[in-house]
């Protein structure tokens, strides 16, 4: 199917992108609206010598992909709200033990079992803070089927580069959307594989980082014995209760993402130069935002759109730079207002920031964004 144009679901494009990335292992538990990912993975992976495991729950699913990644595979899972909640503890394990993997959350309306078949973007703060303990996290959000394909490849690349879990925050509007998608082949995209330690070391220290703050990851069964650890540990991968070692580890885990932010943050802009107003959106809401900007143009308003393809780490400096000469900012989200808090922190106080929010399980519509824009205009 490679190199062709497919008319496929966002959820299906995610699987095809993962395969191009070299993923050979999926473990999951069926849940609406992500199940098409499991279904396609269950067919496609064994075709290419990979594995699909249907686990007993989402806790086991995330655990199994962490294991598979430790075992040397590129691994991913997919879920939605309730399953994402169950996965949080072991996402923390992947952070601490530095295990690259990709977790797809096709967001649906909550809380709890909520509106199972309907979209939302209300897990975006959970994506940032769902685990206990200090750490940074990478979260990426697609707004089109093409981005499901392209950005999942990017998600695997950053997971492999920084030895960390990457959260792929899709939503039901995009996951269940069917549109054209160029299914690029392996040769047409950049594929990054995890860094391995050099041969011939006297002793391999599994958590001794290079200058980029990322430790090389040995192949199990290869030259070196490897240790992975969920508790505070030293460079040898042995547990420690030393305050200095604990602090150094937490700081490095945080810095390896925050200090490499310029390489991790991906965004798109539409008509931002010379615009008076700015819409800042991610995921499915981008589609409504772009239409709202076009509608506003007809009214003679100059409105640009900033699409956050990487939501976490949040590009506060860039948002500030872009917004500082604007008359106002609107943040459309399919939630009660989550990422708007980050935008408010980032932009100068004098610039009004208004949310366009929908949290009834229905996709955000352009007219609702226009209403928010009118509110900004009236200020």
């Amino acid at each position, binding site marked *: 199917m490679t190199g062709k144009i497919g008319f496929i679901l966002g959820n299906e494009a995610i699987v095809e992108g993962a395969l191009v990335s070299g993923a050979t292992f999926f473990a999951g538990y069926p849940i609406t609206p992500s199940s098409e990912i499991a279904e396609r993975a269950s067919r496609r992976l*064994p075709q290419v010598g990979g594995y699909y495991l249907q686990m007993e729950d989402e806790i086991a699913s995330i655990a199994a992909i962490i294991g598979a990644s430790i075992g040397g595979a590129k691994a991913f899972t997919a879920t939605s709200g309730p399953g994402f909640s169950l996965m949080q503890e072991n996402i923390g394990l992947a952070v601490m033990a530095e295990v690259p993997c990709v977790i797809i959350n096709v967001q649906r309306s909550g809380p709890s079992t909520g509106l199972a078949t309907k979209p939302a973007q209300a897990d975006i703060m959970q994506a940032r803070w769902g685990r206990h303990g200090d750490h940074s996290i990478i979260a990426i959000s697609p707004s089109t089927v093409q981005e499901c394909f392209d950005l999942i490849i990017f998600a695997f690349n950053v997971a492999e580069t920084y030895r960390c879990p990457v959260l792929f925050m899709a939503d039901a509007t995009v996951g269940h959307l069917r549109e054209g998608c160029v299914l690029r082949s392996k040769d047409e995209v950049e594929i990054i594989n995890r860094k391995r330690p050099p041969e011939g070391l006297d002793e391999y220290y599994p958590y001794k980082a290079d200058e980029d703050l990322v430790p090389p990851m040995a192949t199990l069964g290869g030259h070196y014995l490897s240790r992975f650890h969920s508790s505070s540990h030293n460079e040898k991968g042995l547990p420690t209760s030393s305050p200095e070692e604990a602090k150094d580890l937490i700081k490095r885990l945080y810095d390896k993402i925050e200090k490499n932010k310029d390489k991790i943050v991906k965004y798109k802009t539409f008509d931002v130069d010379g615009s008076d107003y700015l819409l800042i959106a991610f995921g499915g809401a981008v589609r409504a935002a772009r239409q709202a900007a076009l509608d506003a143009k007809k009214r003679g308003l100059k409105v640009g759109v900033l699409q956050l393809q990487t939501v976490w780490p949040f590009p506060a400096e860039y948002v500030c730079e872009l917004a500082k000469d604007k008359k106002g900012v609107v943040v459309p989200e399919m939630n009660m207002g989550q990422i708007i808090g980050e935008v408010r922190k980032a932009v100068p106080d004098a610039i009004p920031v208004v949310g366009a929010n929908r949290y009834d399980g229905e996709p955000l519509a352009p007219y609702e964004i226009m209403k928010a824009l009118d509110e900004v205009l009236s200020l």
Partner: protein
Amino acid sequence: MSRRSKEVSWKAFLREESLPHQWCAGCGYGVILKSMLYAFEKSGLAPKDVVVVTGIGCWGKADDYLYTNTVHVTHGRALPIATGIKVANPSLKVLALMGDGDSATIGGNHLIHSSRRNIDVTAIIANNLNYGMTGGQYSCTTPLDSRTSTSWYGDPEPALDICRLTETAGASFVARTTVYHVGTIERYILMALSHEGFSLVEVISPCPTYFGRYNKMPKAPIMLNWLKDKAISIERAKNLSEEELSGAIVTGVFADKKGHSFLSRYNEIQARAKKDLEGE
């Protein structure tokens, strides 16, 4: 006695510099650890071929004392993580070391489904009949009516039989022994290591610090003799009534079945899927 030296001595798997270990005086886990190392020696495995996954609990500290690949993970999740490692890298010998809390209580669902899946992983369950690390609270294997730090007036919950559970769920090798019956630990682990499919060895272990102290057995020798008295071989147990077996620890091999492991089954799935792709 010093053991006859095989290709790789058991000591090659031991991080001697980490001794003395952190387990209490009279804790049986050092005995189980040593028996496992003996089994490694006899199995002909090299440290780099072995991956030991440990969860949380006293037995979860075992990786600190090992020169193998080690993966120390969250409470209750050693089995699904071991599953991922084995499937991604089938040439490795993957073990999951879990206590009674880790394996059967918080991780009970994974234990059932790893058994059913017949995944090619060896589980070594050290069952000390309570949560030792957190101060001696009752677990799902604590005997009914026992005193623990959270069942001061007796544990109201009946104990779970890990071997019967996993045998019923489909585990193809299941054995139980106790730290008193020390020679059988190595023997059963060796059998488990050479088994294709899910293999499980449960070892009932003395915890004189908590379970023993709360139940009038404050020293290891008393607890070991208690295990000796409680143990009934599975062969003898077959002729005993449920009443006669009440409170007994049935020891022996519960299941030793040859048959399809998860990986052998999945290899067939892959062959079918590849054929389907070629036919497209």
